[in-house]
């Protein structure tokens, strides 16, 4: 960039003088004048554009562009539950002010992925932690004996060690850790109700950002990623918890779990009771539908999925005015197409990719 870019005369010259200076014999002065004209035009057109946007459109653009002026710092604590099914007496293993990492492998895993998750949300969207207010990320490991699960309890992440036969430690996949942390982000944003279609969307947002966090940490583009969630925690080379690329193929003929029951299209929507034993209407089943829509959209856009498709999905998740707590797949379809149009143009490749994604998932 040329040094004259920052010269103060650019700010105080009236337009008629700028015009004159464009024709100046002094090459430096004419260069400054052209730059000034160009910037003035851009500022005018930006103002003109913003003047005609609705409050919702402004919220979307600001959510994507906003960055706090003071650079916040990650705050994290890692506790060990020492194989007890309670967080009450958990022991603090590490906090973000300690320079030395703990020796515990699971602690290292959650610190690594938790840091990657915080950076993902901050670097790309200016989001300061789960609540965007700098909440300390609390991760509890070694929960219960052979506990084969990870969950978000409304305030913190909790990880089990797995039974060692079917499941390994639930800290071994970046995407699983990103998934749980994103449940926190969703709670502070659209707060999608955890049942039926809105619950499936809640699950899907966690998978979407879980995979994006992993892809960014591993520097994988849409073609390099295998789009698998939990490929390590479910033991055995050919198994993963879920596949976003081909829902229903995360595991097949597993000796204990059978076949992955996720549908990838709306015509295969799974109807289950809205109870705990019915997975609240199949939230972990039907999330495959919007996962697949995201995968197709991102793949068709190409490159790094977090750059465009991720930005569109994040703008949707944080648009509380448009994405209601009881939103349906169809609602998210409409909103993501609208956002893609606003960010990239209604006739853009990106908008077409989003439409193609939802069409592939047969969501109207």
């Amino acid at each position, binding site marked *: 960039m040329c040094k004259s870019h920052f010269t103060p005369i650019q700010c105080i010259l009236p337009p008629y003088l700028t015009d004159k200076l464009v024709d100046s014999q002094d090459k430096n002065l004419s260069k400054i004048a052209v730059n000034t004209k160009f910037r003035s035009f851009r500022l005018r057109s930006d103002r003109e554009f913003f003047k005609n946007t609705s409050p919702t459109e402004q919220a979307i653009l600001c959510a994507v562009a906003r960055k706090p002026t003071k650079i916040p710092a990650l705050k994290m604590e890692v506790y060990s539950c020492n194989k007890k099914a309670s967080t009450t007496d958990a022991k603090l293993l590490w906090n973000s002010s300690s320079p030395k990492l703990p020796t515990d492998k699971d602690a290292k895993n959650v610190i690594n992925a938790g840091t990657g998750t915080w950076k993902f949300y901050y670097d790309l969207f200016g989001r300061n932690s789960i609540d965007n207010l700098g909440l300390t990320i609390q991760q509890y490991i070694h929960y219960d004996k052979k506990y084969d*699960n*990870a969950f978000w309890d409304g305030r913190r992440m909790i990880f089990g060690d797995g039974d060692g036969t079917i499941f390994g430690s639930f800290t071994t996949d970046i995407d699983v850790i990103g998934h749980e942390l994103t449940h926190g982000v969703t709670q502070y944003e659209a707060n999608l109700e955890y049942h039926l279609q809105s619950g499936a969307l809640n699950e899907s947002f966690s998978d979407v950002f879980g995979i994006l966090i992993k892809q960014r940490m591993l520097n994988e583009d849409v073609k390099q990623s295998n789009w698998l969630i939990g490929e390590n925690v479910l033991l055995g080379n050919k198994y993963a918890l879920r596949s976003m690329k081909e829902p229903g193929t995360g595991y097949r003929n597993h000796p204990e779990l059978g076949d992955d029951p996720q549908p990838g299209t709306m015509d295969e929507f799974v109807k289950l009771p809205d109870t705990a034993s019915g997975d609240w209407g199949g939230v972990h089943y039907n999330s495959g539908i919007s996962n697949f829509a995201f995968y197709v959209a991102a793949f068709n856009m190409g490159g790094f999925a977090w750059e465009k498709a991720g930005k569109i999905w994040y703008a949707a998740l944080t648009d509380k005015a448009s994405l209601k707590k009881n939103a349906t797949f169809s609602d998210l379809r409409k909103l993501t197409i609208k956002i893609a149009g606003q960010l990239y143009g209604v006739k853009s490749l990106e908008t077409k990719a989003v439409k193609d994604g939802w069409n592939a998932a047969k969501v109207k």
Partner: protein
Amino acid sequence: MRITLLRTGGIIPVTKKAEKNVDWTSDELSELIKVIKNEEGAGQKRDATGYQLKYNAGTFSIDWEKIPAKYKKTFEELKDDLAIVKP
């Protein structure tokens, strides 16, 4: 009487089950259920697992924390025996 402990939910929904014969009377079980019965609802928990107790009167969601000391050992044994219900 035969009782069944079920565990459902999780990041991939899996049902686990364990059974046991107990010498509790129906009245005793009814009293126990009154103490440990949980209102169904995910609240703000996501991917969480939950327990249900099943016996001849029905299936009830239970709060593990509310299990009285007297019954804790039986429930812990059941929990240790939980095995995946194959689909």
